[in-house]
């Protein structure tokens, strides 16, 4: 009986994986917004997650936005349509893209079908996510200072097959010219594999 329970906990269903990835996105985005000082520090509250003290926004408008995006994202993740989530940091003055955080999602084709659910202990996944969150926190040390007040936007790369939901619109990819890329760690639930890359504008020579 006990062995059965353990086994079921280690199997990762598509739905569960989507939940994990979506949750990770939420915390990662919150973390970036906090670490990069895009929103005032006092609008964040501490929350224990992944064995770390995460900073999560308490701003109602931002919360509503993130929840809406997360809901849609979970849907796409479950259908395997989500390819990337991109957080774009733009200067509020010049509208120039200063930073681009890319979370590339690779969905395991077998898991989308009726293949047997892969197994991976939750502990391992948490450890991998923890490492990424730590890297995001540490990124402050190498990313250039955001001198202007900044705004952010989330871009989602989806399959062309999927219909555009009503509340979404098509956007340009908003690349950074003269970007430097830094690849962070990845994590996998064996259903979804998430790679994280941060690109930032190199200082003008």
């Amino acid at each position: 009986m006990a062995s059965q329970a353990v086994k079921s906990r280690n199997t990762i269903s598509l739905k569960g994986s989507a939940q994990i990835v979506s949750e990770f996105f939420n915390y990662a985005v919150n973390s970036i917004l906090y670490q990069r000082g895009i929103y005032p520090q006092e609008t964040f509250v501490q929350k224990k997650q992944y064995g770390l003290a995460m900073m999560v926004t308490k701003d109602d408008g931002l919360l509503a936005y993130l929840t809406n995006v997360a809901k849609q994202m979970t849907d796409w993740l479950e259908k395997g349509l989500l390819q990337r989530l991109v957080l774009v940091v733009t200067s509020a003055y010049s509208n120039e893209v200063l930073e681009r955080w890319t979370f590339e999602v690779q969905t395991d084709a077998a898991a989308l079908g009726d293949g047997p659910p892969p197994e991976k202990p939750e502990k391992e996944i948490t450890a991998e996510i923890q490492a990424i969150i730590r890297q995001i926190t540490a990124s402050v040390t190498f990313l250039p200072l955001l001198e202007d007040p900044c705004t952010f936007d989330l871009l989602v790369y989806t399959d062309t097959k999927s219909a555009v939901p009503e509340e979404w619109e098509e956007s340009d990819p908003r690349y950074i010219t003269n970007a430097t890329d830094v690849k962070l760690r990845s994590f996998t639930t064996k259903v979804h594999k998430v790679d994280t890359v941060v690109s930032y504008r190199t200082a003008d020579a």
Partner: protein
Amino acid sequence: MADNQCSPLTQRENSVRLFGPKTPGRAGREKLDRFIPQRNGLDAEHGMFQLGQENQGSAASGDGSQTTPSKEEYKKLLAASLNIHEQARVLAFKHKAPAPPEGHDSGLASLYSANLGAAPSRKQFRHVPTTQERILDAPDLVDDYYLNLLDWSSNNVIAVALGATVYLWNAGTGSVEELCTCKNEGDYVSSLQWAPDSSHLAIGTSDAKVQIWDAGRAKQVRELCGHTNRVSALSWNGSTLSSGGRDSVICNWDVRKRKDEALVATLRTHDQEVCGLKWSPNGQQLASGGNDNMLCIFDANFQLQHKIAAHQAAVKALAWCPFQSNLLASGGGTADRHIRFWNTLTGAQLNAIDTGSQVCALQWSRHEREILSSHGYSKNQLVLWKYPTLAKAAEMTGHTARVLHMAQSPDGASVVTAGADETLRFWRAFGEPTTASSKGEQKAASAAGTSASMLRSVSIR
């Protein structure tokens, strides 16, 4: 055929690449007369890739050959490396996230500058040694509040009057020299002051004489008569010597003139003995204090500017601020106990400290914004005050009777005090100059330092 089809296209593509995103075209855009589309949102690489695919497709149909799996793989890799997602649709949520509050500053700038190390913190109060460096015996020093018997020349020679005799003590070598003695029995020296050239010493005596001595030759060069009672205060301003006496008169002598013409001005503002007299460092104003509790400010033409009746006792301690012109500090006697700070242009009192004790002498620090005061009963202490906060920085005790006179060393670091306990004491109250303003000063300072050990206790007489 394929060539015909694609050559204009490829050419066009080339031109696109020519004006690709790397071209710094922003400045030149307005000069060109043809339409160049906005390329920020244009994925030129993607376009190139797709054009290539189109060409290939047409070529393939023309040739009838199949694309090999390796070519497909290469295409995939190329697509991946160029960040092209053919089947991707970039979507953004219509309702954007709320903008951060207006005027929000990320505060990361402080984090970025944190590695520079903490800002050098200035110690609020530097260390001030509270004990004297050395003590000299000064027997027969007249215990009279109204006299001025101690001065330190810029040649590092201290002149002190002990009873009827003036002694010169060289602070560099420690040698003692007897300059002069009053001839008549019962007379004594009541004041002395070094001339700015530091080779001449003005001496006022109890028999109402003002004498000017050449210290190098130990010879009297002038004798000025005009007072009718003892001369208790002297002050030089270039070649002008001002003397104040018990006859409540301030006489101003031009020492370059003949004996009968030397008295250039007589000031009869005070009603009682003039015991404090100081020319300002710029020579524009003369401050005088008297036993009538008055503080008077005269200009360089000996016109009375201000007559201030703020002190409740005799005004003996006077000190002009070296770093702020028109700032004068004056200290009152036992009944007053205050140090008052004046703007001598307007006559306004800027500040006052109740010291709780008779103020006998005042000296400003030349390096720090500090003023040192010497006091009488009950603690006979020296107190170092910060200016303008007037915080007490240090209190130095050692004298066993009131500290009557005070003089500053030429390097501005040390102070010598003469107390009614018949001792001279040296204090390092003002610390080292941060930047030695002249080599001579530095030399004098080092000379004073070396002699310190060898002359820990030497009797002048």
